[in-house]
């Protein structure tokens, strides 16, 4: 299978500082890959290397199976930087026309591309407006459109949702799904982890220039989460429930499962989070029955998946 993006031991140094340390990354064609990491982890450096704007200190980059050579990324990649500017006194259609000319599109193709892109990013009604008069969200969409002007198979988006209001972020997510349906491969970096979970098919977590984990979202979750977790919300008898559960942490009782840990849910004072280990549904049912038998009134008893934010915080915690 030819990967859309592949890096082999990719490294980048700025003087003595190692920004990327033998990064190995594989992104399948047609996927939306979310690149997560704390500030300074190496996300922007990776994207700039993939776009051909930086030269690797070591390793190599492959795009659509071809080894990246200087100047070779331009026709394959559409790049949207995290901080971008606009040209003053340029109209929206002229902005796209300029970049279409930069990519060498001829007259008729250029006009058609500009019209189609304006329609795609929903800026057709702003065609003749000056770029500097657009809102932040509209400028972001316009910048995304410029990255598509030469119809590249790969899109590199650095913090595309940065500075957008919730509605604009929803619109962006829809746009990304549309791009995926068009067969594009999208690699995007973001700090807004909840959005990545909604739209990405694969994620990679990077820290200090090293890839911590990478793969399909569910697989990464399963890989990292390890044991199952229960969320138990108690209406009455919270102290009894907590004491009962803590006893099961120390030692199993009868046919009840041994628990890995019990803690309060910080977002809800009446809820407890229980690490189950490898207990199956039968064991969970017995646990629920035991609690009820102790006089605990339970309003919620369900398995809880660790969300991306918690995974990220756990993996990138300072040791």
């Amino acid at each position: 299978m030819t990967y859309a993006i592949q890096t082999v031991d990719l490294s980048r140094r700025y003087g003595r500082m190692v920004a990327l340390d033998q990064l190995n990354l594989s992104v399948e064609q047609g996927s939306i890959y979310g690149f997560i990491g704390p500030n300074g982890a190496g996300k922007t450096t990776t994207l700039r290397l993939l776009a051909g704007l930086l030269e690797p200190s070591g390793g190599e980059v492959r795009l659509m199976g071809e080894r990246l050579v200087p100047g070779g990324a331009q026709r394959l990649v559409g790049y949207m930087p995290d901080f971008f500017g606009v040209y003053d006194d340029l109209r929206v259609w002229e902005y796209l026309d300029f970049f279409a000319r930069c990519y060498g599109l001829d007259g008729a193709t250029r006009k058609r591309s500009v019209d189609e892109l304006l329609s795609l990013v929903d800026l057709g009604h702003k065609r003749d407006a000056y770029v500097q008069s657009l809102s932040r969200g509209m400028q972001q969409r316009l910048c995304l459109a410029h990255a598509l002007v030469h119809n590249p198979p790969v899109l590199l988006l650095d913090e595309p949702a940065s500075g957008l209001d919730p509605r604009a972020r929803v619109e962006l997510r829809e746009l990304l799904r549309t791009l995926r349906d068009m067969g594009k491969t999208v690699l995007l970096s973001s700090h807004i982890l909840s959005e990545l979970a909604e739209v990405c098919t694969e994620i990679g977590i990077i820290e200090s220039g090293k890839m911590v984990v990478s793969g399909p979202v569910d697989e990464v979750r399963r890989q990292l989460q390890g044991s199952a977790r229960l969320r138990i919300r108690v209406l009455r008898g919270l102290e009894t429930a907590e004491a009962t559960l803590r006893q099961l942490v120390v030692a199993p009782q009868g046919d009840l499962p041994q628990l890995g840990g019990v803690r309060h849910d910080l977002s809800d004072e009446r809820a407890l989070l229980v690490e189950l280990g490898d207990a199956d549904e039968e064991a969970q049912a017995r646990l629920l029955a035991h609690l009820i038998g102790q006089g605990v009134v339970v309003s919620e008893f369900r398995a809880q998946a660790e969300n991306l934010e918690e995974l990220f915080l756990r993996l990138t915690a300072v040791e």
Partner: protein
Amino acid sequence: MRNARVRRPQINPIIVREVRTRMRGARPYVILTGFLLLLAAAGVGIYQLMLQQARFGGTLLSAQVGQSLFKGLGFVELLLVVFLAPSLTSGAISGEREQLTYDMLMATPLRPAQILWGKLVAALSYLFLLIFAAVPVFSVVLVFGGVELRALLKALALLVVATVFFGSIGLFCSSFGRRTARATTGAYTLVLLLIGVPVLLASVWGQFSNPPGQLPPELIYLNPFSALLSVTTIAPPGDPAMAAVPFFSFGDPFGGLPLLGTLAPGVVYYGQNGPVVLPIYRATLLAYGLLTAILCWVSAHLVLPNRRWRPRWSDLGFLLIVTGLLALAYFTRAWWHIPAPKQF
């Protein structure tokens, strides 16, 4: 959307973009009007100065007025070029970095030479507009006479070449520096050195040379004002080619125009056979052409985000241009390198 075939662009997109935006709004028209008014005011002022000489009993010929106007207007326009051209181009590349469009531009297939050429032409296009818009004002000189059309064309050529050269200085500083402010400071420093050092040398040469003599012309080849003076100063009688053109004052070939006398050393020589005007503008044109090519060559490397000094095919083009200019300079040295005549 169909697959778009990516090719090398045809018309430079940067020039297209600049043409679209440069003349928007009232500002460019206000500047153009102001410049032409300034030039016209300078012309009126020079005319009044000449009339003043006549009022004090001097003989004033129409040709003298024409020659003074030619010098004065040329000087004003060159002053504009020297100080505007670097400022127009010193933000060309650093401005892209500051307004965060640099990465998006570098991610396109545009070659560094295309970006530089587009930036240079785009930034200087307005200045060229000003220069050519001033041609009708200059044509007043022909009404008064005293100046050949050939001299006007030489002055125009010098203005155009100086515009490109000083523009390339700004472009070089912009490619080198990360900030427009620093690039502009660097560009003006270079411009002041090019102009100021020869003037300074001229003022002290006589005191420090042994035996005392006039400034060697080679030291002022890069000074544009000296070059303009060599174009606008009409040769005295004795030169058969210029016998029909009156040279009005042996003592003051500049017609009393202030400041121009300071630029005379190295251009006007007072030799055994009378005053001689050395055509140093020839050397200036060649030097500016050569330096422009070199500055653009270095800038094409500096503009790149990585692998700046890796050899490229464009280096071959620049090498051919520079070699061609050097060869031209060598084979035409008798034309542009005219030694100073023997002194008294």
